């Protein structure tokens, strides 16, 4: 296992200070920091071989096209997808879900159909489906959650019916950290031939993800949450589904033949990649995934498990701290509230101590409504965080309590 000092040295930003205090970065659920090797990979594209992909006949275009296609292969291998054609680059999780919601809606959804989501979803996995339902006269059905912030599987089974056309759930909740029982969710849907989309935005970076084992029909994630640059994401889809769906955007590179009378589309995966894709970020994503492999996905998961158990221990010991999301199966994210202190006040003061957390509803208002709260403070950790940083958070909370008492 790589030493923590070695890991932290891989991320230049982690050694900086804010307000004269060492940075404690606990907002990894929003975005992760980037290792030097990713910064170098993107820098190299622009310095050495920048050219538009799939278009030029010239040397640079060839080089960047090749690097971009290699990046697709890296993503395929990382996900253990069967085929490279099943990997579509997008702008991120939101872009991926909007795309599928549009194409799936156009092709398969009619009035009276139902889409099942969970109460734990991020707005990105609610609003696109809502928009599609409004367009098609379909309806959303929502799997409820219990007081621990876990979905209630029995209720999910009851929601499944002949009206169900698709199930879309998160791999893990961004607001509470709960890991969802996706195996059970997928197999129950497949029993009645309903496809499942898994929103992997909070799952991909925390352990091993294997498409052939998971058997999801669609799996989406964002690069920037797994140490890659912003503006790149992935849409994995089983070939049988992607082949059956119409494109969600029209433009260059996604076409086979264009006349004003009719356009025929390019083959997979290009059918879904209209216009110039963010190829430097895709190349950066591939480097990030390689970095994760080099560091060891199991080691990363192990470290994060230890951090989660330590932060749980420290936080539960602080008087007046209420933790939301108390499932035994969680990613290294903890959502909490200090009794009598507004989460915005907590976040502002922690910030001045150099501690970056997120406050508010975390783009998951239905979760907040379920607990009857306006928002929480969220500390989302990843493998480069340390127990010493958790101690600083605990001390910071005591300071906040004394200031607002």
């Amino acid at each position, binding site marked *: 296992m790589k030493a923590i000092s070695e890991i932290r040295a891989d991320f230049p930003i982690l050694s900086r200070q804010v*307000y004269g205090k060492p940075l404690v970065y606990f907002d990894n659920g929003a975005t992760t920091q980037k290792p030097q090797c990713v910064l170098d990979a993107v820098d190299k594209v622009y310095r050495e071989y920048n050219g538009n992909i799939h278009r030029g006949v010239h040397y640079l275009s060839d080089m960047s096209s090749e690097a971009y296609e290699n990046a697709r292969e890296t993503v395929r291998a990382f996900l253990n997808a069967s085929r490279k054609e099943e990997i579509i680059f997008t702008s991120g999780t939101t872009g991926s879900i909007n795309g599928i919601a549009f194409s799936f809606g156009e092709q398969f959804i009619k009035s009276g159909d139902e889409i099942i989501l969970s109460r734990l979803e991020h707005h990105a996995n609610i609003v696109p489906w809502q928009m599609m339902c409004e367009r098609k006269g379909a309806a959303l059905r929502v799997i409820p959650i219990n007081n621990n912030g876990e979905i209630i599987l029995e209720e999910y089974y009851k929601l499944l019916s002949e009206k169900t056309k698709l199930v879309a759930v998160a791999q893990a909740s961004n607001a509470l950290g709960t890991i969802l029982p996706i195996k059970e969710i997928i197999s129950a849907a497949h029993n009645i031939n309903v496809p499942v989309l898994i929103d992997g935005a909070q799952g991909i970076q925390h352990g091993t993800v294997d498409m052939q084992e998971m058997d999801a029909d669609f799996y989406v994630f964002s690069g920037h949450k797994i140490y890659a640059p912003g503006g790149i994401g992935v849409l994995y889809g089983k070939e049988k589904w992607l082949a059956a769906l119409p494109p969600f955007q029209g433009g260059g590179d996604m076409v086979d033949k264009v006349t004003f009378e009719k356009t025929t589309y390019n083959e997979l995966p290009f059918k879904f990649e209209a216009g110039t894709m963010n190829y430097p970020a895709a190349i950066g994503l591939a480097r990030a995934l390689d970095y994760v492999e080099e560091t060891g996905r199991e080691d990363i998961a192990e470290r994060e498990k230890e951090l989660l158990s330590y932060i749980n221990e420290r936080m539960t010991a602080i008087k007046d701290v209420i933790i939301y999301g108390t499932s035994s199966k969680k990613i290294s994210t903890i959502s909490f509230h200090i009794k009598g202190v*507004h*989460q*915005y*006040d907590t*976040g*502002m*003061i922690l910030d*001045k*101590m150099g501690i970056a957390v997120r*406050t*508010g*509803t975390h783009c998951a208002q239905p979760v907040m409504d379920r607990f009857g709260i*306006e*928002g929480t403070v969220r500390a989302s950790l990843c493998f480069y965080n340390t127990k010493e940083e958790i101690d600083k958070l605990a001390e910071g909370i005591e*300071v906040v309590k004394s*200031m*607002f008492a």
Partner: protein
Amino acid sequence: MTINEVQDSIIEEFSLFDDWMDKYNLLIDLGKDLPVIDPKYKIKDFLIEGCQSKVWLHPEYDGNLITFTADSDAIITRGIVALLISVWSKRTPDEIIGTDLYFIDKIGLRQNLSPTRSNGLLSMVRQMKLYAMAYNAKSKQQL
């Protein structure tokens, strides 16, 4: 005191503190001391909703001066609300409209007014000016 004299005195008060925590302690005190808004105004009509914190703002115009009362659910936001009230309450619409609001920048609280912060403060500043413009237009109509 003129509006700018009030702004300058706020800047001076904050300049006594180098440490961020001290500045925020001062804001918290100001927030705690903000006179309470009449509960009948703490309703949706006077709510400025941000996704981080909420602000309630109520204007009262006597034909010459606008008196603002306000509140927030977060104390730091309330502290800044208190500063804005001390600058802009009991002023004529013309004074408010003509203000160059520079004190927030000078005391280093600009991040609290960024559009992405969504704590309701930026909208509050806009709303206060809008009220001033509306009252201004109304009194000119009556002339």
